[in-house]
């Protein structure tokens, strides 16, 4: 497809604004005024066809099954899109007075309260803009907590070797040294290793539970005790909360801080990579460190409170990705407590169902009851014997209109393929996906070359990523 720069024809364009002539020299020094503005000129129809064309070269949850592990690509309800666009939410200014935004503030206050209940925490900030941003907020709270206690020797954050890459990156961004704890043979944290690594230098442990292998760490209470016993804090990465909604709460597992991904668990759309929202919840003893402002309620009136002398400060402009918060609030109100628990039931049921259908065709590094996702690898005779790798299987799935699972993650499993079906898929879709995966394994034994050169049906084939780095072309300019 052409780019907007290739579509450009000088003189094209549509009149969106009054065309009154303004002489800027009346208001600004002439030397400050820009003479050229090399932007493309397209007619409205051209632009509409261009972006419609781009959309058709994309794959979303509405296009088909998207079992991307750890990303929770569940269906995004359309009512959420409507409510977020109500003028009373979309057309309000962050600086308009509290008295004129009581509906928005009430929604935020109730969402804070609901997320605290769902996670078993005491206080919540809605400010972080994404999961990784929530992590940074949480780890800055860890830092502020130890600083206020004068506990300056706590320089280390412990992270499991199965963790999301954002965990170590976040800890480093908050100035901590990262210490890796290995997994045990059952896929959980190696508790003895953790005990040995924990010391008076430990600021916090970051953990996902169920973890990135989809495995629930049964020794979580013991793990939390080890960290607490040495004066550290325990941080919950909420990426996998979908698995335990209504069944178990991080607060009851012993966690002190949690971040949520509203774009995973609470159905807000991923938007092709944002915007998300990453609220952070904490236990009572950490509430004073939350970012400002928090929404408070007094006598039925809602306020933005900045009165928090020990707050880590502000994490972004204003109050959060409000439009995303409206969607998550809508979802929670629609589902209610039973609906949310059923989400976890069916997310886990669906993962186990798919696994049961493919387990004979793949290798299971940890053969346990998975929660909402599981990790498998292709059989050895394919990988070593035929040179067919996980990437090849993933690419071949594209030919059958399935989005592939997450591949090569977690890092501790060789040729990993991480499958998260989510609760919103039908039994037929799940069975069809499993059958396709098995069929690709069979096909790869007979015709490995065809699988290795997949995809064959997409608008482009495998792209040369090395060339993108060696001969970088990161933008286009008018006139080439």
């Amino acid at each position, binding site marked *: 497809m052409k780019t907007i720069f290739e579509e450009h024809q000088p003189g094209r364009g549509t009149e969106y604004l009054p065309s009154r002539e303004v002489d800027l020299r009346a208001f600004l020094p002439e030397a400050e005024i820009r003479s050229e*503005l090399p932007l493309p000129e397209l007619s409205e129809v051209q632009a509409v066809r261009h972006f419609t064309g781009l959309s058709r070269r994309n794959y979303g949850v509405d296009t088909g099954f998207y079992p991307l592990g750890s990303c929770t690509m569940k269906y995004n309800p359309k009512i959420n899109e409507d409510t977020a666009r109500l*003028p009373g939410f979309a057309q309000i200014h962050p*600086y308009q007075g509290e008295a004129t935004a009581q*509906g928005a503030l009430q929604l935020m206050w109730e969402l804070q309260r609901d997320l605290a209940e769902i996670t078993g925490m005491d206080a919540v900030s809605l400010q972080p803009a994404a999961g990784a941003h929530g992590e940074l907020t949480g780890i800055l709270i860890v830092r502020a907590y130890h600083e206020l206690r004068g506990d300056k020797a706590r320089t280390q954050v412990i992270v499991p070797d199965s963790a999301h890459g954002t965990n170590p990156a976040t800890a480093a961004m908050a100035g901590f040294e990262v210490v890796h704890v290995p997994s045990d043979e059952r896929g959980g944290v190696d508790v003895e290793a953790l005990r040995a690594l924990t010391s008076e230098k430990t600021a916090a442990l970051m953990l996902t539970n169920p973890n990135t292998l989809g495995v629930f760490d049964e020794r979580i209470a013991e793990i939390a005790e080890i960290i607490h016993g040495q004066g550290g804090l325990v941080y919950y990465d909420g990426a996998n909360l979908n698995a335990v909604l209504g069944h178990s709460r991080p607060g009851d597992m012993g966690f002190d801080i949690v971040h949520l991904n509203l774009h995973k668990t609470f159905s807000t759309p991923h938007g*092709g*990579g944002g915007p998300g929202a990453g609220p952070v919840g904490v236990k009572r003893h950490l509430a004073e460190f939350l970012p400002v402002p928090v929404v408070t309620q007094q006598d039925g009136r809602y306020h933005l409170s900045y009165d928090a002398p020990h707050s*880590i400060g502000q994490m972004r402009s204003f109050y959060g990705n409000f439009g995303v918060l409206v969607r998550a609030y809508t979802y929670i109100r629609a589902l209610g407590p039973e609906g949310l628990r059923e989400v976890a039931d069916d997310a886990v049921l669906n993962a186990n169902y798919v696994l049961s259908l493919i387990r004979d065709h793949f290798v299971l590094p940890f053969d346990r009851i998975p929660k909402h996702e599981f990790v498998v690898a292709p059989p050895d005779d394919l990988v070593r014997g035929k040179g067919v790798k996980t990437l090849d299987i993933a690419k071949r799935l594209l030919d059958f209109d399935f989005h592939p699972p997450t591949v090569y993650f977690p890092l501790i499993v060789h040729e990993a393929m991480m499958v998260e079906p989510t609760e919103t898929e039908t039994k037929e879709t799940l069975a069809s996906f499993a059958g396709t995966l098995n069929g690709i394994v069979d096909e790869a034994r007979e015709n490995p070359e065809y699988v290795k050169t997949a995809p064959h049906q997409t608008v482009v084939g495998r792209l040369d990523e090395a060339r993108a780095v060696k001969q970088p072309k990161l933008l286009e300019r008018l006139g080439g």
Partner: protein
Amino acid sequence: MRFSPHTADDRRAMLRQIGVDSVEDLFSDLPASVRLERPLNLPQGLSESEVAALLGELAAKDLDMQQYVSFLGGGSYDRYIPSVVGEMLRRSEFYTAYTPYQPEISQGTLQAIFEFQSLIAALTGLDIAQASLYDGATAVAEAAMLAWGQTGRKRIVVARSVDPQYRSVLRTYAHGHGLEVVEVPLRDGRAAADDVATAAADAACVIVQHPNFFGLLEDVDSLVGAAHGAGALYIAVADPISLAVLRTPGAYGADVAVGEGQALGIAPSFGGPYLGFMAVRQEYLRRLPGRIVGETADHEGRRGYVLTFQTREQHIRREKATSNICTNQGLMALAATIYTTLLGPHGLRQAAALSIEGAHLLGDGAQGISGMDMAFTGPYAFEVALRTGAKVGDVQAAMLGAGMLGPLDLERFYPELPGHMLLSVTEKRTAGEIKRLLAVLQGVEA
């Protein structure tokens, strides 16, 4: 309202296939001590019609900019958004997709980001732009981290005339890294080159917004000179609409340009989701945070786009990454790309020009009101900072009574500016509305 499709028969058949009797069996590894043995204490679930009514009632409690004429700005603007933007953003192939990890089926998202990077580079006059950041404030903070990484210096200098939200977030991020933030004081609402030269000794960067938070033009040439003279990077903060008419950061010598992209077709939405952007000179490519999209080809030579230079990023580099940022603001970057494409150079210039003209109509009129004056001297655009003998709270009440939103009380962020307020004018404000505002301002008792 539930979105799980399973019937009781489905569940039974699936459990049989798995080889367990009940869904509870699949949770058997959760220790009793961590199980929640009661329903979540939340309101009962609702049907779609009920939830729509509930949200409608909440939204109706807010005064919105369709009913009220907004003169609020300061980093969030009520600009006209062509119908096409909303229409295209609701194409669910875009908004229900995730980060484009599988480029063969994500060319739509990838090409749109490539076009976004191209547009930001054209607007800022710099060499390279990345795929977007959370918002303007975090973009400023990330730019400061970039400068620290580049220079190894631990002092960040920021003009006090930079948006207070941005400075606030900068302090939070800087504290995490143990960096020192030094503010350059206001001199007639601006940063002075002498002050910058002093502060910039041994600093990683100097951060200046232009036009600044008060709408004033900074003396960028001398500020760039002062920063570079001290070996510090110059980070320009700019509103993208202003870049349609003003000399670019690239042209006046900035090393990095960052800003808030909300003005490019994104609804005010009570402060988010918005869009941070960042553009840099070529030599800082490998220090950029977040996603970058590049052009390449498949084995048949067909053009395609991929995420590239990923060795900077957290999923590869983990604790050595340039930032922990994982995604960008994909859909918001798409909105900005569509908006900018539709308006084109003439439309974007017109949005800027009409806003500036309106701001001056307001500024000129306000100067004629007794007890009111421009807060600062010199050229200004978009925002109008005024000093008033009246209480700013009274002005807000009077405007509300007349069906208008504004102004922002500057004392809230600048204790040194009591009785100062900020009004903002976009291309949506008509001369009639501005005259009505002037009449309201005239009527407020000092």
